[in-house]
């Protein structure tokens, strides 16, 4: 398991954080996602053997947001 932080600059309310956290259920290999509208970021804990950074960025984009790796 690895923990990474992504900046999500285009979140506009707390509901955006909730939408992004929904990736917990959609992406295989995700242990936990904590998204914060206050900090405009998401911290994701995932299994590197099942998921990579590009896939995460793509999944966030599919939700309508931009993820920037830190």
């Amino acid at each position, binding site marked *: 398991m690895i923990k990474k932080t992504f900046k999500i600059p285009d979140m506009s309310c*707390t*509901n955006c954080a*909730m*939408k992004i*956290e*929904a990736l*917990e*259920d959609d992406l295989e290999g995700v242990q936990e996602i904590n998204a914060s509208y*206050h900090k405009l970021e998401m911290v994701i804990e995932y299994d590197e053997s099942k998921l990579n950074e590009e896939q995460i960025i793509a999944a966030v984009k599919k939700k309508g947001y931009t993820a920037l790796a830190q």
Partner: protein
Amino acid sequence: MSKKQNKPIDPVIVIVLGILFISVAVLMVVFQPKGNSINITAGAGTMSQLVVAFITGITTGGLSCLAVQGGLLASSLAHQIEQDYAGQAGPKKSKQPAARTNSALPIGLFLLAKLVTYTLLGALLGWLGSYLTFSPMTRALLMLAIGLFMIGNALRMFNVHPIFRYFSVEPPKFITRYIRRTAKGTDTFTPLFLGALTVFIPCGVTQAMMATALGTGSVAMGAALMFAFTLGTSPVFFIIAYLTTELGAKLEKFFMRFVAVVVLILGVVTLDGGLNLMGSPISLQNLTRTWFAPQAATRPVADAASQPSANAGEVVLNVENNGYFPTVLKAPAGKDFTLSLVTDKTYSCARDFVIPALNYYELLPESGTVQVTIPAQQAGSTLFFTCSMGMYTGQIVFENQ
């Protein structure tokens, strides 16, 4: 839905429901109690507050709520639509396009549950508020806090500075996670349950209204305020959610600016009310009156026979439904005098008379005269008075006679 197929509701019914809601709004404005005319700013206390709450809901609350809570409903509906379409793609393929699923019922249930829950929340907030409203000063402080909260939220929506993001309350993760997973349910109970759970993810405008409900300090008023507001949000929520969630997403960006402007105005008005209630000379009303004092002082007095007669040791103030007249009184400095507060079929919050500097508060009778002894004040000083909501104000200027 995995259950039996429901008959789709005709869009006409949806539009009729929308018209019904709007009609209720119009009726609430037109038929205010005691025969008052349409006058929201000067409205009669309780009813005008409810009308303002309803209009706030119908104009900005619906879209704001849709932006925050619409995703939950949409995800629940999307699942239902998906299931319905899957059900229709059976061996016998119809040449007709697949009928739109019956989304009106779950949206209706969702909104009904939301209405009930927010009304209960309003009652709870009003009850909590009753322990906070010990005095006009407490009320003033609460109004200042509410006003700042609303202004902060508006500035957040305008994206003025990252610091304003902290004016938005982030619900605890376990709650959002639970709501999100419940949203994936497909039974008819789900929309009801989800509607109730939206109470944990209120939008900015709703949060502002919740703060106002807290400020009422009354269980009934808190419940009524949240009921009126949530009822107001319902038509917009219903129609847009019903028509398409995509339209909601497009509208979100366009209307967020509008919502921000309205919240900003409401915030400034609330903050100003708080300043009035504190007896502050720097409230907008008191500042403008100071600048334009001659005009303000010439406001009509209801009863010409009861013109102020300060020299005789008595000053008369007419307390009317739309404020205090005259708004600027002149009184002799250096000696006590009697202020006679005259009401005549006065039903507005002007009856709740407050002189913050003297810590004086009195609920005046609907018709009658109440006399207050004002202690001696220095020449050149000003004593501000207001209603308990900080809406109507006036001042007494002390002069050497």
